[in-house]
């Protein structure tokens, strides 16, 4: 009897620890794979507004980042390689690959400096409002880096994949 009680107690304690550990690492999001991605319309570094929906027809990676976010900055060279490799690739239904970079910077100078330093040649937008950015609200971003891969019709293909897992998702759309 005592053994059974002890067993249940330790199971409960373990579950509580595991749950706490999982919560500290999760990035909850309201977006769902297979549903339509919301639109965004934000200014680029030169003030020209670019909307996400205007890019329909291509596979798009919506990449949330900031120059103050070390892991995001570290990921940019990998994205540059993906961009070069797949920008003009032959996809099953899409006409190419594009990255829509959304920065949560709040200082334009820092944002522009980071773009230049890392030779980022894809679309960049920001309302320069740090975590109060409407883009972070609309896409329910809870941690950086964060990204959403969408297809030519604006349907979400993948949420927050990085490295090889992200490339595999893009490859799945290639016409083989």
């Amino acid at each position, binding site marked *: 009897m005592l*053994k059974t009680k*002890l*067993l249940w107690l*330790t*199971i409960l*304690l*373990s579950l509580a*620890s*595991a749950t*706490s*550990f999982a919560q*500290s690492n999760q990035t909850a999001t309201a977006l769902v794979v297979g549903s339509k991605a919301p639109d965004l319309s934000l200014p680029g570094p030169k003030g020209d507004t670019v909307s996400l929906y205007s890019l329909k027809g291509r596979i798009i990676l919506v990449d949330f980042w*900031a120059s*103050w*976010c*070390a*892991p995001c900055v570290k990921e940019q060279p990998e994205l540059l390689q993906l961009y070069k490799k797949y920008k003009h690739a032959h996809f099953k239904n899409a006409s190419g690959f594009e990255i829509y970079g959304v920065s949560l*910077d*709040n*200082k334009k100078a820092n944002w522009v400096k980071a773009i230049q330093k890392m030779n980022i040649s894809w679309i960049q937008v920001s309302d320069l*409002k*740090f*975590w*109060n950015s409407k883009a*972070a609200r609309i896409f329910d*971003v*809870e*941690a*950086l880096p964060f990204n959403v891969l969408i297809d030519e019709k604006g349907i979400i293909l993948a949420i927050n994949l990085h490295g090889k897992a992200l490339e595999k998702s893009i490859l799945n759309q290639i016409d083989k």
Partner: protein
Amino acid sequence: MKINALLSVILIVTAAFSLQASAQDKTQPWNANQLLAPEVLAKNIGISDTAAPLIICIGPSALIKGSVEIGPAQEHDNLVKLRQLLSKQPKDREMVIYCGCCPFDKCPNIRPAFAVLKEMEFTDPKLLNLPHNLKVDWIDKGFPINEN
């Protein structure tokens, strides 16, 4: 026999999680009493009181209403600015610093800033408890921000 083996595994896993959490706490320059809950600070914002805490942003942007912007404390010039600001304050004034860029374990700003507060011997230094970031732990809860 099987139950004993299962119990042992579960106990080891639980102990490992506890030890990990304990070890993390000991490496921080602040203690649990020096972490200020966002709810507590939010209630005091806007109240006209000379004893109100000085809220200092040592991260990318001073979004919290009434806070003073210093800039990211990982940069030397901003640490100098922080020291200049603190040098004009009474040592017993409640000081609350925050960054909110990233989770505590990845934030490059909170540790050097909190170390300065301790080094300058403020008696009531506080770190705003934003374990995830400013959006999740402050903005999403509807607490007051500086709109621009």
